[in-house]
């Protein structure tokens, strides 16, 4: 999965429908990065990448790129 596909999946999971998110964009400025969006992201990481993260791990994510970097299988 290339970076564009990952980004599209990330946006789909959050239910984001605006202009494509920029990798440097701050997650706290993305309205869809709320409790529902974060929950959907965590569930997707578990199902698609067999990767489990906890809420404290999510707190450390600052940008869209940080979230995309998690989207791979170990």
């Amino acid at each position, binding site marked *: 999965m290339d970076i564009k596909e990952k980004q599209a999946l990330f946006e789909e999971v959050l239910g984001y429908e605006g202009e494509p998110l920029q990798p440097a964009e701050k997650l706290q400025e993305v309205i869809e990065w709320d*409790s529902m969006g974060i929950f959907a992201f965590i569930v997707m990481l578990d199902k698609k990448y067999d990767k*489990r993260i906890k809420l404290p791990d999510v707190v450390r994510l600052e940008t869209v790129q940080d979230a995309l970097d998690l989207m791979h299988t170990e």
Partner: protein
Amino acid sequence: MKIGVAFPETILTNDDLAKEYPNWDPQKAFESTGVWARHIAKGELVSDLAIASALKLFEENGADKSEIDFLLLCTQTPDYIEPATSCIIHEKLGLKKNCGALDFSLGCSGFVYGLSLAKGLLVSDTATNVLFIASDISTKYVNRMDKANRVVLGDGAAAVLLDADDARNIGAFSLGTDGSGWDCLCIPAGGAAMPYSEETKIEATDFQGNTRSKENLFMDGTAVYFFAIDTVPPLVAETLEKNELQIDDIDLFVFHQANKTILNNLREAIGIPEDKFYINLTDKGNTSEATIPIALSELEKSGRLRTGMRVLIAGFGVGLSWGCTILKWK
């Protein structure tokens, strides 16, 4: 098994919530959680809802309350720290004096646990007619600015009446506990460990934008999700084995109605056909220990649940605690 259900009068819809939360999408919330509306206790107490559900049960089934010799109440939001709310319900329902009354505190697994207690009372001849009520007003403890919990949770009650014949139609149980996760879902303040104080009233907003104090209900949704995904599939397998049944022998699967995402992922993980799996949170949300009997009542009234069917019920959540059994419907 006879069932009566009751809800508080006030209904809060996602549209109502959207008026309070700017930039919050009510439709997206519905798609994610499966909840569009929920009943909210305004002045009602757990005992009020419990009594209303019992009266509905008596009215719809012609049950004779003078034959009830044990009252069990499952709640996490009792009227008082003491006495047991079941004693108050006993008095207000006018049950006879030689009738046991007992509260127990469990949430999402509580209905399954209650059936195990009721079955024990019946098969041991301790009681001949058990009135078991699951009643909760958890929204009373949810902060107004805690969107995550406010959208999912609702208040409600369900009463079931069981006799020895019903007990024979309740199969073997699988029950479990993992107390290491006690703080994943809790109301930290208000008990002896953390009495109410000025400090417990202080509100803080987390990075997801949800505000709460120590006097409010807290839920780590991610931890609860992983707990459910790890625990429920083996729980179902163990219960089927204990009852010497295969998954295909089950006509309906009724799990604790936690939220749509958890339920759909559990269904997929276990391999349950969609038409045998019940999800209905739309107009009531997650009513804690009352979700399973409310769902059973809905299924029976709609004709999907009929005499002779085998229903697997599974509860999981706060504690962390879980339980599962199989009912032969009558």
